[in-house]
């Protein structure tokens, strides 16, 4: 019985640029994706993440720089000759072929004999749990099933790199969670190199070993999911992943790695993250802001302007001297009403110094 194995290889971008006429979609991008890891390209639409993915696939040719898969330079190689498979947003199942024919399609062009083509296709369909639907046409499958056929079709070729282009965007919310766990499971059990594109930050946080946040054709930040959320490098990342309050502040002194920061009347001691004395910016997640009674020590005084009950928690808008602050409170029974005076406190792990 044939089994799907992995030929995972790394992907390297060496100052890769992609231009469409005068427009630069990707600027001098360098990155390294280790073999066997799931790396997500995350960013708003138009940030160049899909272009990056298509350059790995060979569907777009880089205007400058080098692309390596494993140790091989593939910069000039067309898609046909690259050992890369892709799962498309629309799934791109061939509507005139059955599920079996779809999964066998790539195998037929890879020089396997007939028997092996059938066996491998069957193994692929078994892996995604659709072995009994091989005779159907794609139009006779549900969205989730089509999705899995697309994955099987890409997997059976045992590609060096497997690419996903927003694979879940056509599924409903519940199915989305289920399928993303399946994809992650197959990826870890086979040890595949996967590059995954999405604009959904929750999805990215859930499936990735590493996330590369892109903005305007450049890498905005590259790191583990938790790093990105807890320690965003700049305002863009802080704002794009989750919600954040952004404040202007002043770094008074830096001692080793600890900076003393003045935020209005409040003084904080935070990791300096390479910042020196002077004006700076501070990002704080709404959930990291404590809403306590007015006049508490080292707190920012404010007035509640809006209180919204959303079931699991309260959403609060507070007017302060630094502008409006967005905070959440898990205590849905707290006695908070618009007009009430509160004091905002900032735990040491919450606020993060960022660049502009």
């Amino acid at each position, binding site marked *: 019985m044939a089994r799907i194995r992995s030929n995972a290889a790394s992907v390297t971008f060496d100052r890769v640029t992609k231009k469409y006429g005068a427009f630069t979609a990707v600027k001098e991008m360098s990155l390294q994706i280790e073999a066997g890891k799931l790396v997500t390209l995350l960013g708003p639409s138009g940030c160049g993440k899909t272009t990056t993915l298509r350059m790995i696939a060979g569907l777009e040719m880089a205007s400058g720089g080098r692309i390596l898969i494993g140790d091989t330079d593939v910069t000039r190689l067309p*898609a046909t000759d690259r050992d890369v498979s892709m799962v498309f947003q*629309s799934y791109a199942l061939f*509507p005139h072929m059955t599920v079996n024919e779809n999964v066998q399609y790539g195998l037929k062009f890879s020089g396997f004999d007939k028997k092996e083509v059938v066996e491998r296709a069957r193994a692929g369909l078994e892996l995604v749990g659709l072995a009994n639907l091989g005779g159907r046409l794609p139009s*006779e499958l549900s969205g989730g099933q089509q999705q899995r056929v697309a994955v099987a079709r*890409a997997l059976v070729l045992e590609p060096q790199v497997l690419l996903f282009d927003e694979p879940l965007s056509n599924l409903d919310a519940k199915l989305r969670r289920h399928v993303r766990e399946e994809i992650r499971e197959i990826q870890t059990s086979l040890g595949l190199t996967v590059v995954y594109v999405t604009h959904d930050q929750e999805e990215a946080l859930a499936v990735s070993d590493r996330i590369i946040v892109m903005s305007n054709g450049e890498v905005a930040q590259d790191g583990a999911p938790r790093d990105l959320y807890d320690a965003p490098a700049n305002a863009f990342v802080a704002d794009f992943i989750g919600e954040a309050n952004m404040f202007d502040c002043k770094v008074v002194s830096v001692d080793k790695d600890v900076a003393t920061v003045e935020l209005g009347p409040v003084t904080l001691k935070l990791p300096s993250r390479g910042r020196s004395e002077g004006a700076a910016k501070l990002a704080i997640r709404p959930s990291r802001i404590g809403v306590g009674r007015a006049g508490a020590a080292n707190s920012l005084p404010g007035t509640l302007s809006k209180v919204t009950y959303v079931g699991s928690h309260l959403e609060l808008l507070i007017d302060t001297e630094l502008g409006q602050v967005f905070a959440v409170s898990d205590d849905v029974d707290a006695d908070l009403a618009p007009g009430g005076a509160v004091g905002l406190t900032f735990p040491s792990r919450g606020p993060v110094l960022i660049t502009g």
Partner: protein
Amino acid sequence: MRNARPDWPLHPTLVLWTAVGWAGFAILPWYGLNDGILSLSWLFDGYPLDSDVAPALFLNLQGEKLWLAPLGVLLLLPFALWGRPKSDPLFGPALIAIGAAGLFWFAFQGFAIGLKGFQYEWLVSTFGELGDRQFGMGYGALLVAGAFLFIFTLGIAARGAIGGDEFVVGSIGFVIAVVAVFIFMPIFQMLASALITEDGTYSVNTFLGKLFSREIWGIDCVTGGSRCGVAWNSLVLAILVGVLTTLLGLVFALMLTRTGFRYGRLLRALTVLPIITPPFVIGLAIILLFGLSGAVTQALDSVFGIPATRWVYGLPGLLIAQLLAFTPIAFLVLIGVVEGVSPSMEEASQTLRADRWQTFWNVSLPLMRPGLANAFLLGFIESMADFGNPLVLGGNFDVLSTEIFFAIVGAQYDQAQAAVLAIVLLFFTLGAFWAQRFWLGRKSYTTVSGKGDSGVHPHLPKRLKYTVYAIAGFWTLFTLVIYATIFYGSFVTLWGVNHDLTVSHYVKAFAVGWNEFGIHWRGAAWSSFFTTLQIALVSALPTAAIGLLTAYLLVRQKFAGKDAFEFGTMLSFAIPGTVIGVSYVIAFNVPPIELTGTGIILVVSFIFRNMPVGVRAGVASMSQIDKSLDESSLTLGASSWQSFRTVILPLLRPAILAALVYSFVRAMTAISAIIFLVSARYDMSTSYIVARVENNEYGIAIAYSAVLIAVMLAVIGIMQLVVGTRRIGRRGLNADADLSQSRTNVSQSGVTPVGAG
């Protein structure tokens, strides 16, 4: 990297084309054969040594036609790349050099040495008289030219163009080459021949004199003289037809979408009429009704005592005939435009307190403006290019398209004059074509997006609605009378004189008998009928193939110069059939390409006249196929050719069928180009009918026309059935969507100018 292909010492594609080149050079006869290659009689006429049928290699070995030898030498050069892979830096440039040198020498020797030896003075003065000559090129030459072309494109692909894709680069090269040879070259040769004076020298002054002569541009009729120049005649007619067909088309489109008219399907069926009707048939029916001995004329004479006149021959008759013939085309264009105006725009207007009339006048109509201009330009081009109706109905009202014809076939045989007239005609149609593409192309107000728009088009104001009904009703009734007249007329002994019913016309044209050899096709029309069927069938496949290939390149590939490529391939839209006919006669009458009098020239003219239809059908349906389908095929390891074959072609099946049938039908009803190109051996139905009309044998002409219409109707009907049912079983859930899509393909192709003929 992925596919462990066996390592060829020489790139397999290069091996293929070098082999083809050698087959052409050393095996097939180099020059054209009188009997055609398929008769195989050349094999017994002294092949391979006799110089009439010898391959180039054997000619050279016998010391003849030595100017062909460099081609053989060039065909040896690819072997010098033995052992070098495609990625070798020398591979691409070397092939480009070989291919370019081969193509250049091929064309140069073809044009430089003709029936009378050297064709150019400077060659004679440099080398002296050649003392030898050559005829038109044949299949050997064709293969060698193909080999050099594809060696050239392989070289370009190896340099990395379009991701190094041999299939795509080769296809682009192929389409450019055939369009250049069969559209641009004849047109340029025609332009050149316009410069030739009667004593055979070139003169710009004479040309300008002819171009601005009074015959063409005179305005005597305004200043009190008898007649105006043909250019003004054509222009006036074309503008009138453009305006009126646009209005009529708008009337029908409004009636279909905004009056709650319930028989829309029937109305859409009307659009099939111009596709299945040979262009001059309407003119013929007008004569039967309003001519000197026409039914209406005689009735008016006997009832009201209005004397019969020849009023219908000329502008009025032409106008009526062309309005009937071309209104469906305007309708097809405008139905899309009228439906394209988003109902929510109109609903928004109504909620803003505009009444129906104000909404229509201030919102709906302005949004349709680009569509109206488009319909006008199409009507304009159609009218300019129409040849059949002016031929039978023109009387003393000369128009450009028929004047070109008479310059060539008349007693004068003035090739230069025909070319000058063709230039004027081309100027008008290309101007309109240019305006349509570059001026209108950027202005589309189509406001319906891909997303569902749940609104409903508001109905027209009452008074407008009844006006629309009245006009459309009248037009439809008139059309029915026309077709009834043709049907009835085919059974009348002698129209206007003897109205006894008879089948003698059908017997005369289509009698079948028996003799000792089996079925004997006795009727006079059978020969041209079978020739037409044969030519139309043979030309349908290459027409559809080139059309779809071009569409694939346009929709799916990105390459430098794509806009020019598109313009070039769609250009033959705007080239009237008469112009193509004249330019083919001028270009393909002498070596290097000698085709006049053969069936091939008919096939070729159909392929390139109808190619835009295939392109449009292909573009329309290919745009419906998600691009990610071919991309996923590519990432799964299929090459672009394999993707085209296994993914795109099967999905395009309805479009392919539609393109096939459509080019077949158009080939059967065309007249303008082929009337120049038919020969005794290859006569076509339409030119046969026109000849009968000119001999006043109306009966047989009408009977033949009726048969043609019936055949076309059957073909279109069968196609609709096949295309309609094929997908339901196969596609399950999507069947409905696909069905409508295939329908649009058919009508989409109908949007394209039908006539120019």
